[in-house]
């Protein structure tokens, strides 16, 4: 099916879905390039699964278009779309063996000789020889791969993945992330991956869209989003940030001057999303370096002073909490590379950073400092 139709990008245009008074997806527009690995990242209830289900045809949009190439498929029945889904629960047919599960889509389209294709698919997902088993006889990871093979065998134009790794344990998850990426590169199909796991999104996707309350907060390459988040939500959903509430006082000499908690800082204009009014000055915890006193801060760097209130050793790094004079606790990650000395809890310390690593975000006037990450939602309750 996919082979005959002309290739094309997947475009969502002004897509909206309301359930009663609740707006799950709010006027969403985005373009997913053909052959790319795209991740929709967000906490549960942010509308990412609803978006996916509208692309699959399992949910009808309230308004807007789903375009594949230049064809609007938004009102097409799911079985008429060149789109397949890997479901969160896998939804393998319990009454069919693995072979028939994988062959299901081909058979429904009236293809008679499926043996070669199924065998090829099973070996792509490394399940050779499992054809005669029932889904219940396989482990979670194996079932996940069957679900993938069952969808991929149809060579859809777009493959949708709905938290496909949510039910797996951490180690298997890492393994499957690499596996999925390998398979995507091999088959060259557009993957749209829905997840609440920011690490998963960053590891696999070429492009990540961070969703919040039915809208896209930021869209871009994982590194770009991480290094220069667009909003406070993104800064703390994708990794963790220390956001200090301040007032920007305008540009001078390529830098934006900021006053926060009585101290003057500056951020390069290229890393500022606002140059006047209330702003958040953001620095990632791993970009902060902890030293004993202000004279150890190298020239051209900026710093804040505080007291170390907590130090947790987590192997690759030590995570410190530094309570500033105005009471905010900043996170500092010090890599255990052997070059830095440890700082004792209770002692005074100075955290400094290179201004080129900081970023400036517009801020609601009522917002104060924000340093805690947006917590991951438990698996299995996504919208």
């Amino acid at each position, binding site marked *: 099916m996919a082979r005959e139709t002309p290739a094309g990008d997947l475009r969502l245009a002004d897509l909206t879905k309301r359930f009663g008074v609740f707006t799950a997806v709010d006027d969403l527009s985005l373009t997913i390039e053909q052959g790319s690995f795209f991740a929709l990242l967000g906490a549960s209830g942010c509308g990412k699964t609803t978006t996916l289900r509208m692309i699959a045809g399992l949910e009808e949009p309230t308004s807007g278009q789903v375009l594949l190439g230049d064809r609007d498929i938004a009102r097409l029945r799911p079985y008429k779309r060149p789109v397949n889904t890997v479901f969160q629960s896998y939804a393998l047919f319990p009454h069919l063996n693995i072979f028939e599960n994988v062959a299901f889509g081909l058979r*429904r*389209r009236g293809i008679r000789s499926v043996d070669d294709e199924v065998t090829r698919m099973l070996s792509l997902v490394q399940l050779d020889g499992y054809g005669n088993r029932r889904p219940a006889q396989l482990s979670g990871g194996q079932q996940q791969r069957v679900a993938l093979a069952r969808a991929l065998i149809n060579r859809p134009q777009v493959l949708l993945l709905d938290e496909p790794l949510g039910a797996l344990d951490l180690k298997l998850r890492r393994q499957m992330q690499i596996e999925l990426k390998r398979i995507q590169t091999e088959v060259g199909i557009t993957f749209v991956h829905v997840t609440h796991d920011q690490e998963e999104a960053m590891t696999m996707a070429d492009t990540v869209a961070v969703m919040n309350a039915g809208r896209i907060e930021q869209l871009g390459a994982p590194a770009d989003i991480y290094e220069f988040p667009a909003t406070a939500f993104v800064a703390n959903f994708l990794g963790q940030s220390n956001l200090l509430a301040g007032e920007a006082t305008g540009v001078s000499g390529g830098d934006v001057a900021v006053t926060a908690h009585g101290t003057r800082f500056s951020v390069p204009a290229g890393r500022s999303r606002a140059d006047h009014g209330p702003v958040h000055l953001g620095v990632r915890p791993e970009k902060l370096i902890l030293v004993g006193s202000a004279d150890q801060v190298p020239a051209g760097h900026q710093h804040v002073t505080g007291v170390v209130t907590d130090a947790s050793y987590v192997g690759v790094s030590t995570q410190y909490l530094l309570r500033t004079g105005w009471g905010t606790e900043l996170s500092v990650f010090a890599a255990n590379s052997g070059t830095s000395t440890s700082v004792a809890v209770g002692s005074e310390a100075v955290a400094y950073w290179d201004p080129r690593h900081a970023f400036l975000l517009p801020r609601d006037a009522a917002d104060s400092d924000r340093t805690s990450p947006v917590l991951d939602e438990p698996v299995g309750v996504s919208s």
Partner: protein
Amino acid sequence: MTLLAPTGAGHPPAAPPAARSGRRRLLPYLLLLPGAAWLLIFFGVPLLQLAAASLYDPSGSLSTGYAMTWAVGNYPDVVQAYWPQFLRSFGYAGLALVLALLLGYPLAYAIAQKAGRWKNLLLVCVVAPMFTSFLVRTLAWKTILSDNGALVGLLRDVHLLAPDGRLLATPFAVVLGLTYNFLPFLVLPLYASLERLDHRLLEAATDLYASPVQAFRRVTLPLSMPGLVAGTLLFFIPASGDYINAELLGSPNEYMIGNVIDSAFLVRLDYPQGAALSFLLMAAILAVVFGYLRRAGTEEVL
């Protein structure tokens, strides 16, 4: 048995382990005992008695007494005399089963998947007729279908029925009665199966190019097989042995094998014949059931 065994079993801690494990092993048999005794006294013994009676000398009677002559000939004799009633029994029961499936499957599906908060109420409605006696319900049908009833009058008026046509005392009435009376036995197990059906599997099927009809055939139907098999058996077995519907809604032309057995035991007092017929009916039903189960191939039921 050991200290690691799950707690909460609540046996006295003083009992030595050996005695405890011995009692454990006996427990299932002790639990079986009342049921087994009941079956033995009220099913096993009468069954043997009936088997013996089916081999009595057919020339005996209640007043002269029966002699045990191992009269195996009773069996071919009753087949020769009553094979039309045998065929009719299975024919009517089969026809009623088809009708009940056409009515019951959509009903069970609707209750299980679409009824939402009305689910329990609808289930009660399915079971509600059982609160009145089987006999009373069948008599009610007799009134509904009677020659002077409104239904027959209406059908005659619209010329769906000849001016002297009737519904009562026709195969139609008997099959209708069977369908009606045994429908809940089909619907309830079907409902139980369909209720467990995961709608995500149907979504997966539609995602994999199955049209609604194909999704039903390839996913819903196979997954409801356990309930379907159990329901059809619960329907077919009593329906093929039933005699009330043919008695009340039919005429001797519609008599089923149950009616023959009934009259052999209670009217003609021909015990050897009645017993032989009973055994043949049992054997025929067992054969049908096993043949069916083999074809349906659902390990889940047996």
